C-alpha cells in the first residue's frame, strides 16, 4: 500500500539538545569521536545507590526564555528554538502544527511539591504543551503523544500522516524526558539498569542506562524544500503478549518494519542502515534481532546509540532519528558503543566502528512497555 499520489514530506531542520551538545552538529561530532554522555552518578536526589546515566550537569543553563518553565519545558523550548532558527518555517502560520512526545513530562514535580489539584494541573502535559505553543506563537492546538518508548518515532509518523493528509503544511515535532527519582527507582525496581555503560546486542549485556535530552524535527510538504531528506513511511504494531516484556518471536515488530517499508514503497534491499532501539536489556535486543531477521534485514548495518545517550524514553526515537539523518548527510553510520561480541541468537550486522556509506535510506525502530513497536523509514 503505497501513497504515490501523496506529497513528499521533507525534513527541513532538526536539533538534538543533550548532555553531549546543544545542536545536531555538536552531537554528531561527539559521536564521531566516540564520546559518551553516560557516566556514574552519585546523586541522593535521584538514587540512594550510584547509577550510570547520561544526565545534564546541574549548572547547565538551557536558555534565557524567562521564568516559570520547568526543566522539561526548558529542554523542549531550547531544542525547538534551535531547529526553528535553521528552518524557513513560521510557527505562527495556521498551517503549522506542534507535536510533543514524552513519557513522563513534569512528573518530577511530584517529588518536590505538595500534591494538590493545582500541582496536578501543572503536571498535565497539555499545560506544558500550551506554554510551549504560546512561547513560539503556534496557532493550532498542540498534539501530545505519550506512548511509552515509541513516543518519539510515533510522533514522526503522526506528523508525516497529518501532512500527507493535507491537514497542515508544516509540523514541528519535539520530544523530551527528564530523569527523576520516580523514573530511576522504577527501572531499578525492574532490575533493568546496567551497573556500567550499557552494551547493546553484546553477549555480556546486562541492562540499560537512562538518559535525558530533547530533540526536534521540522517537517514540511512545501515544494521549496524539494531535495531535502524525506520521511517516507511508518508503521506501529502491538505484541498483544505482555505489558512489560517483549514478544517472544519479534513477529510484531517485524510486521511494523515491513509495513513501514511498504508504506515507503521500498524493499529490504533498499535499506542502507538500521537505527535500532537496542536498549541493551537481554530481552529487547533478542526480540529486535529476531524481528530484523524476519524482515530480511539481518545483513544491513545497524547501530544502537544507547551507549552514548542512554535510553532517553520519549525523546529516544527523535534523538536517534536525527543522528541517523545526519548520518545520511555525512555518509557515516555511527558505531555501536559497548558492543564487542554478538549476544543475540539471530545474527545481525552490528556496526562496531564508524562506517562510511553511500546510503539513501535508513529505518528507525522502537519498542516499549505495553507491547508497542514502531518503525519509520527516512531517506534521500
Amino acid at each position: 500500500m503505497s501513497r504515490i499520489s501523496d506529497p513528499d514530506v521533507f525534513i527541513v531542520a532538526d536539533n538534538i539538545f543533550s548532555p553531549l551538545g546543544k545542536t545536531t552538529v555538536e552531537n554528531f561530532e561527539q559521536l564521531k569521536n566516540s564520546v559518551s554522555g553516560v557516566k556514574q552518578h552519585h546523586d541522593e536526589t535521584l538514587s540512594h545507590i550510584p547509577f550510570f546515566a547520561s544526565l545534564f550537569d546541574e549548572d547547565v543553563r538551557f536558555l534565557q526564555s524567562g521564568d516559570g518553565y520547568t526543566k522539561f519545558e526548558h529542554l523542549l523550548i531550547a531544542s525547538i528554538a534551535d531547529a526553528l532558527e535553521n528552518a524557513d518555517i513560521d510557527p505562527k502560520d495556521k498551517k503549522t502544527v506542534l507535536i510533543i512526545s514524552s513519557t513522563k513530562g513534569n512528573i518530577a514535580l511530584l517529588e518536590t511539591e505538595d500534591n494538590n489539584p493545582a500541582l496536578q494541573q501543572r503536571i498535565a502535559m497539555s499545560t506544558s504543551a500550551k506554554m510551549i505553543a504560546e512561547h513560539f506563537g503556534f496557532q493550532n492546538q498542540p498534539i501530545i503523544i505519550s506512548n511509552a518508548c515509541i513516543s518519539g518515532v510515533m510522533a514522526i509518523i503522526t506528523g508525516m500522516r497529518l501532512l500527507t493528509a493535507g491537514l497542515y503544511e508544516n509540523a514541528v515535532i519535539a520530544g523530551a524526558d527528564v530523569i527523576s527519582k520516580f523514573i530511576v527507582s522504577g527501572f531499578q525496581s525492574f532490575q533493568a539498569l546496567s551497573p556500567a555503560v550499557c552494551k547493546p546486542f553484546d553477549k555480556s549485556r546486562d541492562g540499560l542506562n537512562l538518559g535525558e535530552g530533547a530533540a526536534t524535527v521540522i517537517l514540511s510538504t512545501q515544494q521549496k524544500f524539494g531535495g531535502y531528506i524525506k520521511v517516507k513511511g511508518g508503521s506501529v504494531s502491538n505484541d498483544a503478549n505482555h505489558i512489560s516484556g517483549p514478544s517472544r518471536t519479534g513477529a510484531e515488530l517485524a510486521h511494523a518494519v515491513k509495513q513501514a517499508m511498504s508504506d515507503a514503497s521500498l524493499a529490504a534491499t533498499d535499506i542502507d542502515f538500521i537505527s535500532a532501539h537496542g536498549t541493551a536489556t537481554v530481552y529487547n535486543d533478542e526480540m529486535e534481532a529476531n524481528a530484523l531477521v524476519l524482515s530480511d534485514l539481518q545483513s544491513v548495518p545497524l547501530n544502537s546509540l544507547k551507549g552514548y545517550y542512554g535510553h532517553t524514553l520519549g525523546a529516544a526515537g527523535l534523538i536517534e532519528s536525527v543522528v541517523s539523518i545526519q548520518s545520511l548527510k555525512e555518509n557515516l553510520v555511527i558505531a555501536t558503543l559497548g558492543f564487542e561480541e554478538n549476544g543475540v541468537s539471530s545474527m545481525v550486522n552490528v556496526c562496531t566502528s564508524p562506517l562510511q556509506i553511500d546510503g539513501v535510506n535508513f529505518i528507525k525502530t522502537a519498542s516499549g512497555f505495553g507491547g508497542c513497536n514502531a518503525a519509520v523509514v527516512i531517506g534521500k
Partner: protein
Amino acid sequence: MATNKYISSTCTIAKNAVSKNGVTLFENPGADITAFQLSVYQHFHFNYPKFYKMDNLSKLGWLTAEILLKDDFERFNYEPEEIGVVLTNSNSSLDNDLKYLDTISDIPSPSVFVYTLPNIVIGEICIRNNFKGEHAFFIQEKFDPAFIAQQVNYLLDNDILETCICGWADVLGQDYKATLFLVEKKKNEQALLFSPGNMDSIFNTI
C-alpha cells in the same frame, strides 16, 4: 479512499453506571471507584484474573472495551493486524503515578511502576483480544472527537486498519470516565455514522 465509517457499538462507564449503545446496563450508586469497578467485573461475570493486578485506568479501559465488544464484535472477520486502538485522556497515568510515588520511600514496586504509562491500558486491551494493529495514546485537555475521528479515518481510509476501537479513558482519584467507540467500515443495524458530532453527543449523554 475516504468512505463512510460507522460506529457499530459504544460503551460508557462513568458516574457509577455502565451504558452500552445508549442503554444503562448496570448501576452501583455510592460505591467508590475500587468497589464499583469490581462490581462491574462481577456483574458481567468476567473471568480474567489479570484484571486484579491492573491499575484503575487499565481496569476502566479494559472493562469498557469488554462490554463494548461483547456480543457486537465479529472478531473473526478481521486479522489481528487489522484491528487498532486509539485512546486519549487528560490525566495520562497520574492516578497510578501518585500510587507508585507512595511506594518509592519504602520499596519501589515494579508491578505498580509498569502502569505509570498511559498506553498500558491499550496493551491490556490488545493482550485480552489479540489485537496487533496500529495504536496510539494522545494526551488532550478535553475530549476532542474531531481529532480522534481524523486519526481513525486516516488509518481506515488508507487500509492500515479495517476496524478501530477509539475514544477516551481517564481516571484521577474518584473521578473517572471512559467512552469507547467501535468503528467499522460496514454498517450494522444500529450503526451510527462515525462523525465528530455523533461521538460528541454520545460522550456527553452521561
